[in-house]
């Protein structure tokens, strides 16, 4: 059973998670995942203080470090998987560059819409197909790994899973901070953190929000190197549906470029690409989204619009 999921804008400078927790009337302790911060996982003082001392860090990053120390075989297996995933991502990225470039060229090409529009749609469909193909390949790789390694049955993992489950049993909700999106997803998955959450509310921001969605989309329109092609990384943990969370969208995306905005929105449709900037909040009740103040989504016409309940 899935409870309420609240996706928030970045919390470092303008924290809002305490208000979100209060408005849902969550009582008791709050489990905290800061595994995306990696070795700084325990540097959670400001966040714990903001949460009025109610947070208990599940230490997901350091727990998995302990697993790797005790189970070097599993570590080697995960590293091999990581290498395969990285190579797969590179291959996908090569193909994506050409496919996206073609779509961008057609979207900005002048000419008769009657002639061009079907070609534009087909070009975007090519991108969608490539994204879907990549997700399938990554999923197959994970499935093969799970089948071979049965991570949850390994002694060190099982022990930590049990400890995490016990901590979660004692909490009224879960908070998932941002950081390194792949590290966060992998550690939450390995420790089956969502398996212990049940119908408790979950509050997530930045990479945490990305991890809870159905697919993780990496994005930056103006990187110092490269074309800035948004790319699908892998499936998220799927706690909420129908949204592509875009933390720091105002900083990372050229929201004043209608071609890029429109392509982004059309590529990931029907999911709503939501700009998760500071103070933004959107709430998922298991079936539909309720936008909070300032929640905006990228539109197919290249504009930004208020996110409507859906």
């Amino acid at each position, binding site marked *: 059973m899935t409870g309420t999921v609240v996706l928030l804008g*970045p919390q*470092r*400078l303008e924290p809002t998670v305490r208000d979100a927790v209060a408005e849902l009337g969550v009582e008791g302790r709050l489990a905290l995942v800061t595994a*995306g*911060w990696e*070795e*700084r996982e325990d*540097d959670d003082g400001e966040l714990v203080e903001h949460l009025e001392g109610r947070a208990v860090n599940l230490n997901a990053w350091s727990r998995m470090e302990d697993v790797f120390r005790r189970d070097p075989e599993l570590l080697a297996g995960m590293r091999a998987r990581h290498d395969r995933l990285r190579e797969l991502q590179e291959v996908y990225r090569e193909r994506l560059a050409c496919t996206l470039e073609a779509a961008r060229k057609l979207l900005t090409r002048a000419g008769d819409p009657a002639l061009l529009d079907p070609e534009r749609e087909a070009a975007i469909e090519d991108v969608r197909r490539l994204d879907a193909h990549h997700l399938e390949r990554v999923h197959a790789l994970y499935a093969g790994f799970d089948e071979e390694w049965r991570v949850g049955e390994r002694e060190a993992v099982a022990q930590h899973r049990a400890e995490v489950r016990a901590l979660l049993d004692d909490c009224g909700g879960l908070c998932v901070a*941002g*950081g*390194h*999106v*792949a590290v966060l997803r992998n550690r939450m998955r390995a420790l089956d953190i969502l398996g212990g959450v049940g119908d408790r509310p979950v509050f997530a921001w*930045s*990479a945490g929000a*990305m991890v809870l969605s159905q697919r993780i989309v*990496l994005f*930056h329109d103006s*990187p*110092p*190197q490269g074309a800035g092609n948004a*790319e699908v990384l892998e499936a998220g943990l799927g706690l909420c549906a129908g949204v592509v969370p875009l*933390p*720091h969208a105002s900083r990372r995306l050229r929201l004043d470029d209608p071609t890029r905005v429109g392509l982004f929105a059309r590529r990931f449709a029907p999911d709503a690409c939501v700009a998760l900037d500071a103070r933004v909040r959107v709430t998922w009740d298991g079936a539909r989204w309720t936008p909070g103040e300032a929640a905006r989504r990228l539109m197919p016409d290249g504009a930004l619009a208020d996110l409507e309940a859906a």
Partner: protein
Amino acid sequence: MTLAIQQLERGLQKGPADVDAFLAEHDFPIVEGSKATFAWRGRADAVHLRHWIYGLTSSQPFHRLNGTDLWTLVMDVPPTSRVEYKLEIVRGDRHKLIQDPLNPHLATDPYGANSVVHGEGYVRPDWVEPDPEARPGELLERRWRSDVFGDVRPLTVYLPARFRETRRYPLLLVHDGADYLRFSAFKTVLDNLIHRLEIPPLIAALIQSPDRMTEYADDPRHADFLVQELVPQLESEFPLLDRPDARGLVGASFGAVASLSAAWRHPGFFGNLLLQSGSFVFTDIGEHDRGPVFDKVVDFTNRFRAEPGTPAENVFVTCGQYESMIYYNRSLVPLLQSTGMAVRFVEARDGHNWENWRDRLREGLSWLFPGPLWMVYE
């Protein structure tokens, strides 16, 4: 396009009031398309614009507008250019170099400050300005006793924000480090690029030589100082990644020569080189004409061209199109590429100066040390 100065010349009475109005109505130099109009007002026998653009006569004469005390010069300044200059005021036998009193834009360097004109489209990068959201790193000031050189010299160590002893960091060794800090906003740049995730958190050792023209000119002691003395000591004191691909050398002008020379003398020790406007003067035949201070540089560059080896894995080369070193750097790039190293070469419409080197840091550092931009969302 009719330039503003042409309008003044054509239609007006050219009295003091017209000149007053002209000066009040415009920001100077007036940049219109690819033309820049410089102006100076006062009594003089001649006025010149002194610049360091290679290929142009370094002194460009102003012309006095008939019947006025307004001196003007129209010069090509292509889009995105940065040109540093001074005005030379001639009165009798006296020649006085001054900053342009009508232009508030200054660029500082170890010799003082120059006026600077920005061509159309030049934008001062926002990442060279302090960002209140960026967590600041820390500068540690040290005195370094060098056995190689037998003296004590300053060393500044940059530690990134949220530095942790339990993490291991890449290392940048920066020649003329104090100048990079002062004139190229190096600390601000590192703070911002790390904050933006465009480079990873790293440690930088900023060195300063008391005799750079000797020590940076392929002095074997300098290479030994870096490899046998400085890096081992830094590795014992700070949590550094002990891998060539996590080490980089940065240098401009003679500092770039020192960087390439050190990497060449110790191939494979440094994985990454950022060479800015390197003074890589060489000769194909005969003697060079750069003066004795370049003797060792020319000797090194000629030897390097004969046997480049593979000094590093990645080399980022930058140079200004308006400096004499552009010829040598353009010539060097194919040779670097032929060694199998990954080479990136960037030219800019700028000169041999610290703001040119500053403006190229983002592209160079993020290429040599890519940050976790795509994977981290905080």
